[in-house]
């Protein structure tokens, strides 16, 4: 009986130590693998690139994880990723932190994205100005009647604050004002479009790639500009007519090796940019 217990203990200890040593080994071999972390908006795009690239180069190993632009940039600062995929520029706080840690990085624009404002199909409004959007999302306007719609209360949907889209929309449309405290913060683009699909009075924003196949009851709004109403599309984003657009970025660790560079070159190549359009974002190729 006693012997059995001791044996069991020995076995569990040895198994445990193997597992622990296995874990630490994975970190050492990290250099042969390219890791990309960051924006949830870009996960689909980046993983498509990674799949195609790995099919072309059988020795290449690329790991892609989401978590939000902030997560990716934090990972660059902690030296735990080669590339941070980000749908927003680095914040001042983050770049000073990088300096203090002595971490260098470069910024590359790899594609463009338009942010579509979506409402339920039952909503009679089909276009809004940036100013009206600002009033709605800051909570100064709370009824659709006030912007020319039905006498219904507006249900404001926003993304969670870890989303690059959240910060970008706040900067550009809200002009750095705060979102209304009553805004529902959705943890993902798909839960946002799902809610717009179900709720006649909801308004929200998602990346152009999501708006295209958001659901049968989701409608994309045009933006009223001095030059007329502009619907978000690949052409209007590329030409700069559609006002709510942003660059999608790679922040690359300055110490990154040649494998990382080769992958980025592939993303920027003609073939890589073709994938961008296929997925619903806007390519930066002419």
């Amino acid at each position, binding site marked *: 009986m*006693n012997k059995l*217990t*001791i044996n069991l*203990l020995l076995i569990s200890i040895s198994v445990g130590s193997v597992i622990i040593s296995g874990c630490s080994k994975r970190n050492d071999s990290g250099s042969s693998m390219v890791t990309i972390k960051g924006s949830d908006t870009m996960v689909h795009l980046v993983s498509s690139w990674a799949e195609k690239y790995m099919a072309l180069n059988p020795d290449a190993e690329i790991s892609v994880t989401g*978590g*939000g*632009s*902030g*997560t990716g940039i*934090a990972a660059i*600062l*902690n030296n735990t990723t080669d590339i941070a995929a980000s749908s927003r520029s680095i*914040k001042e*706080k*983050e770049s000073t*932190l990088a300096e203090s840690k002595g971490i260098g990085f470069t910024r590359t624009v790899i594609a463009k994205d338009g942010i579509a404002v979506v409402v339920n199909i039952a909503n009679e409004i089909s276009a809004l100005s940036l100013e009206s959007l600002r009033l709605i999302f800051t909570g100064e306007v709370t009824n659709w009647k006030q912007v020319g719609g039905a006498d219904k*209360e507006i*249900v404001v949907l926003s993304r*969670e*604050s*870890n*989303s690059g889209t*959240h*910060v970008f929309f*706040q*900067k550009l449309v809200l002009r*750095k*004002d*705060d979102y209304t*405290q*009553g*805004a*529902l*913060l*959705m*943890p993902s683009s798909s*839960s946002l479009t*799902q*809610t717009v699909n*179900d*709720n006649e*009075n*909801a308004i929200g924003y998602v990346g152009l790639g999501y708006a295209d196949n958001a659901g049968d009851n989701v409608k994309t709004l045009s933006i009223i500009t001095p030059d007329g109403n502009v619907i978000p599309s690949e052409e209007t984003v590329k030409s700069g007519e559609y006002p709510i657009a942003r660059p999608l970025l790679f922040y690359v660790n300055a110490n990154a090796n040649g494998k990382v560079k080769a992958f980025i070159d592939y993303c920027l190549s003609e073939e890589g940019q073709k994938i961008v359009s296929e997925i619903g974002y806007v390519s930066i190729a002419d």
Partner: protein
Amino acid sequence: MSSFFQKENLIKYLLQGAASTSIFIVLLIVLFLGKEAIPFFSEPGISNLFGTTWKPVSFKEELFGILPLISGTVVVTIVAMFIAVPTGVIGAAYLSQVAHEKEREILKPFMELLAGIPSVVIGFFGLIILAPIVKELFGLQTGLSALTGSILLALMAIPTIMTISDDAISSVPRSYKEASLSLGASKFYTLWKVTVPAAMPGIVAAVLLGMGRVIGETMAVMMVTGNAASLTLSPFNSVRTMTATIAAEMGEVPFGSEHYSALFMVGLVLLFMTFGLVLIGQRYLQRQEN
């Protein structure tokens, strides 16, 4: 002979070590949370914590008042317990005392199956099916409300409460029941006035465990409560719970910023809330024993 004692001692220490790991881990967690939260006391200052606005990302002024988050957690938890405790305890009483062996054989595995459903799946169900129903039923602006979250949490807490209460009620000595029945009490009277009260310590433990699950649950709540950080006690409003706040914001937060320490502060408060709950439960059980 001496080597036998040495062996025995060795095993004793190993077992002691295993038993005290939980204490060790709890201490480590408290230390870690405290260490990361301490900067909050100097900058932006502890008084900020009791504000009524949680607005951690802002170009104008960042505010870290956790009262809306506490109210969110409290509302969701109380409503969930209102649903889960009666259902769980009555269900357990039925399962252990009234149900036939065959019924029990069917009900019990299903109960355990419910406990095993991942919370993301339950959250997904809530978002797609339950939220529109709640919206229609109560004529709300949106179905993403505290109530929807509470119903989902109740679904998750019921199996815990029911299984443990069931064990507690089943282990009440037969003699209690027989004494009551022999005095002429009805079967129902015996169940509610003798068997269930005798099982009370176990039922309280079950409720506490269920409540622990409800307070700590994150994913399902985050998907269906709408996450608007407004100070409210109405279950029909959208709320932002403490767990959802930590989960949603921790990924984005700049390392070592005020927001970062504020999130650890939220974690610390949450930990003390559950700690208090366990303490109250134990007090209650001690009083019962005396």
